[in-house]
C-alpha cells in the first residue's frame, strides 16, 4: 500500500509531506493511481507514541479489555507501540503466554505490542521467572507490576539475573505493609474517612530500589512515580550517576487527592492520587528531565468493579486515549514543558530505555506515526472511547490534541471521520 500524507507539518522537520510504501517511509516515490492521499490540512505529524506501561488484560480478563480493543484504543490515542504488563491470568511468566500475546497482537494489527514478563513466577514474589526463555519469545523487560517486588532479597536476585539477558527491571514501588488503604493519606482521607496510603509507602521502596541499583551497578526503572520525595530521590540519584529511570502518568500531573471527596471510584488508583505539592513536583520532574517518560498505566475495569463502594472498587483508570491531549493541554499549552519534551517523554525516552528502536520519521524507517490537531479544542467523550471499559475521570474535559490519523507499519490503524 502506498500512502501520501500531504499538507502537514512534520515534527522537528521542515517537511510538509511524507511518502509511505508498504511498511516504510520512502523517497523518492512514484505517484500512481494506487496511492491513498491524506490531506492533513496543516496538522502536525509526530512519530507514533510509545507506552511503556499499560494493561491489556488478555489473557484472562477479556471482560475488561482484549488485546484487540486495547490496541484499537492505543491507535486512537496516537500510539504505535505499547508494552503490556504481565498481571494477566495466567500471569505472563513463561514463554507460551508471551507467544500468545504477540500472536493476538499481530492478528489484531492495530499496534506493536511488547510484552513485559513477570519477574517472579506467578507474580508471587518468591521464585525467579523464566526470563531467558521469555526474552527469546519477545519480552522487553520484567516486572511484578500491580505489586511491588516483594522483598529486597528478591529484588537483588531479579536485578542480577535479568541483567544476564539485558532485561530492565521495572518496579511498582509501594510498600505493601503500609498500603492498606484506598486513597492517599492526608487531611482529605481523614476528613472523608477513607483509609489512607501514605506517600512514604512509595518513597521507602523507591529509596530501596535506588540503593540496590547503586550497589549492584544494574539499572532500575521506577514505575508511575507520584510523590514529591520520590522525584527528589530520583533526581539526586541520577546526579550521582545511578542508572535509574522513571515514568509518571497523566493522572499524577492533572489530578489530586481532593478529587476523591465524592467517593467517585474513577479517581481511585494505585499509587493513589497525591496532594497538590506532589502534582507540582511531578511537573517539575518532567520539566527538568528527572522523569524520563509519560506512561499511561492504562488499567481497564468493568463497570461492575467500579460502580460500587469506593474502598471496594478496583484500582486504575484507562488512559490510552487521553495521555497526549492531557500532556499537551496541561503541560505544553501552560508552558510547563516544551512540545519537544512531551515527545521525548512519550516517544524517544521510552523507546531508548527499552531499546525498541522506535520514533524515526526518516526514509527507511518503519512508517509509525500519528497526526494531531493542536489548534482546536475538543470535548472528551468517554462513550466514544474504543477501549472496552470506560473507567475514566476525564469525561467532559475540554482538551487540545485530537488524533486525526495513526499509521503503524504503513497500515492505517485509526482515522478520525470528519
Amino acid at each position, binding site marked *: 500500500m502506498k500512502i501520501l500524507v500531504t499538507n502537514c507539518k512534520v515534527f522537528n522537520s521542515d517537511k510538509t509531506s511524507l511518502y509511505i510504501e508498504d511498511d516504510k517511509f520512502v523517497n523518492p516515490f512514484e505517484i500512481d493511481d494506487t496511492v491513498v492521499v491524506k490531506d492533513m490540512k496543516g496538522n502536525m505529524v509526530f512519530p507514533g507514541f510509545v507506552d511503556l506501561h499499560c494493561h491489556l488484560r488478555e489473557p484472562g480478563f477479556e471482560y475488561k479489555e482484549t488485546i484487540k480493543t486495547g490496541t484499537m484504543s492505543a491507535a486512537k490515542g496516537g500510539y504505535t507501540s505499547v508494552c503490556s504488563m504481565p498481571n494477566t491470568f495466567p500471569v505472563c511468566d513463561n514463554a507460551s503466554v508471551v507467544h500468545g500475546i504477540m500472536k493476538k497482537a499481530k492478528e489484531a494489527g492495530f499496534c506493536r505490542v511488547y510484552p513485559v514478563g513477570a519477574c517472579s513466577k506467578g507474580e508471587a514474589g518468591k521464585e525467579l521467572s523464566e526470563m531467558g526463555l521469555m526474552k527469546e519469545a519477545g519480552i522487553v523487560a520484567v516486572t511484578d507490576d500491580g505489586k511491588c517486588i516483594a522483598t529486597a532479597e528478591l529484588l537483588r536476585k531479579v536485578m542480577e539475573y535479568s541483567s544476564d539477558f539485558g532485561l530492565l527491571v521495572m518496579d511498582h514501588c509501594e510498600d505493601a505493609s503500609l498500603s*492498606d488503604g484506598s486513597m492517599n493519606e492526608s487531611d482529605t*482521607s*481523614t476528613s472523608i*474517612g477513607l483509609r489512607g496510603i501514605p506517600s512514604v509507602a512509595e518513597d521507602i521502596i523507591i529509596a530501596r530500589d535506588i540503593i540496590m541499583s547503586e550497589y549492584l551497578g544494574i539499572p532500575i526503572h521506577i514505575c508511575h512515580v507520584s510523590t514529591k520525595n520520590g522525584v527528589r530521590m530520583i533526581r539526586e540519584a541520577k546526579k550521582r550517576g545511578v542508572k535509574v529511570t522513571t515514568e509518571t502518568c497523566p493522572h499524577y500531573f492533572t489530578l489530586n487527592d481532593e478529587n476523591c471527596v465524592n467517593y467517585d471510584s474513577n479517581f481511585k488508583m494505585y499509587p493513589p492520587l497525591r496532594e497538590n505539592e506532589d502534582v507540582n513536583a511531578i511537573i517539575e520532574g518532567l520539566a527538568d528531565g528527572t522523569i524520563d517518560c509519560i506512561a499511561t498505566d492504562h488499567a481497564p475495569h468493568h463497570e461492575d468493579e467500579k460502580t*460500587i*463502594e469506593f*474502598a471496594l472498587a478496583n484500582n486504575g483508570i484507562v488512559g490510552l486515549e487521553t495521555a497526549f491531549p492531557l500532556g499537551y493541554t496541561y503541560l505544553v499549552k501552560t508552558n510547563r514543558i516544551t512540545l519537544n519534551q512531551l515527545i521525548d517523554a512519550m516517544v524517544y525516552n521510552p523507546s531508548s530505555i527499552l531499546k525498541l528502536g522506535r520514533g524515526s520519521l526518516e526514509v527507511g524507517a518503519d512508517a509509525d506515526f500519528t497526526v494531531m490537531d493542536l489548534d482546536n479544542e475538543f470535548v472528551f467523550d468517554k462513550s466514544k472511547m474504543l477501549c472496552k471499559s470506560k473507567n475514566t475521570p476525564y469525561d467532559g474535559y475540554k482538551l487540545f490534541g485530537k488524533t486525526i490519523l495513526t499509521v503503524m507499519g504503513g497500515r492505517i490503524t485509526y482515522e478520525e471521520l470528519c
Partner: protein
Amino acid sequence: MGLKNKDLLGMKQLSAEEIMEILETAKTMKMVLTSGNKKTSHLQGKSVVTLFYENSTRTRLSFELASKYMGSASANISASGSSVSKGESLLDTVRTIDMMATDIVVMRHPQSGAPHFIAPYLNASVVNAGDGMNEHPTQALLDLFTMYERFDSFEGKNIAICGDLYHSRVVRSNTIGLTKLGAKVSVYGPRTMVPVGIEKMGARVASSVADAVKDADAVMGLRVQLERQHKSLFPSVAEYSSFYSITSDILALAKPEAFLMHPGPCNHGVELPTAVYNCDQSVINEQVTNGVAVRMAVLYMLMARRNSL
C-alpha cells in the same frame, strides 16, 4: 426554612442554620416523646426503611421508634455479611428498596461514602446512620442537642473528645458540627489512633487526656472499637486504661458544671471506669432519649422537604 438537600449524608453537608433548626425541632419532638401520648401523625402514610450492613442495637432501634412514633410504615433490613457475598451489589439492593415506594432509607454501612454513592441513584431520601470511618450525623446531632439543652450558645465552648480518633465517625461528625457552631474542639488519643491532618477539620490535637479535658465545658469519650482493631494500635486494654482513660481525676480538670458524654456502647473500664460512667456528671443515658428526639426531627424535616416539592 427547612433542609436544603434531599438526603442527610453528613454534618459536612449541613449549614449552621440547618443544624440549629434541627436542634429546635428536636426540642418539640422531645416534648412529644416525654408526654403521655407519643403518637404523632407527621409521617402518616409514609414509609421508612432501615438498612443496616453493620450490627447496631441502639441506633437502629432509635430510628425505628422515631419513625413509628410519627406513624410511618417501617421495615427493617439486616444485611448480614457484605452485599458482594450475596452476589447482589449495594446499588441493586437499594434500587429495589427504592422501587417499593420508600420515602426514606436509613442506612448504616461499613464503607465510608456508601450513602453518598447510592443517594444520587434514589428517589428516596437517604439518611446516613453511620458510614465506615466517615460520618454519623444523627449521633453528632443528638450530642449537640444534649449540649444545647445545657448551653445557651455553642460560641467559645470547649469540648474535649478522647479515644480512638482514627476509626471514629463520631469524632468526625462532632468536630464538623461543633466547629460550624463556634465551639472549640480538643481531641486526644493514642498517637497511633490520631488520623493525619485532623487539625485541618478544626480540632486541636491535645498533648494528653488531661490537656484535652482541662477547662472543658463538655467531655466526650469515644468507643475503642475493639472489633475494628484489625491492626494492633495499642498493646493491651490494661495499657490503654492506664494512660488514655477518662478517670474521675481527669474529669475533675474540666469546668465544675461540665458533663460527660459517650456515644455508646461503652467498654467499661477501657474508655471510662464504671464509676465515672455512672457519676453525677454523666448524661450518657439521657443521650439515648435525645437520640430518638433528634431522629424524629430529622425524619420529619426530610419528609417536610419531600412534601413541599
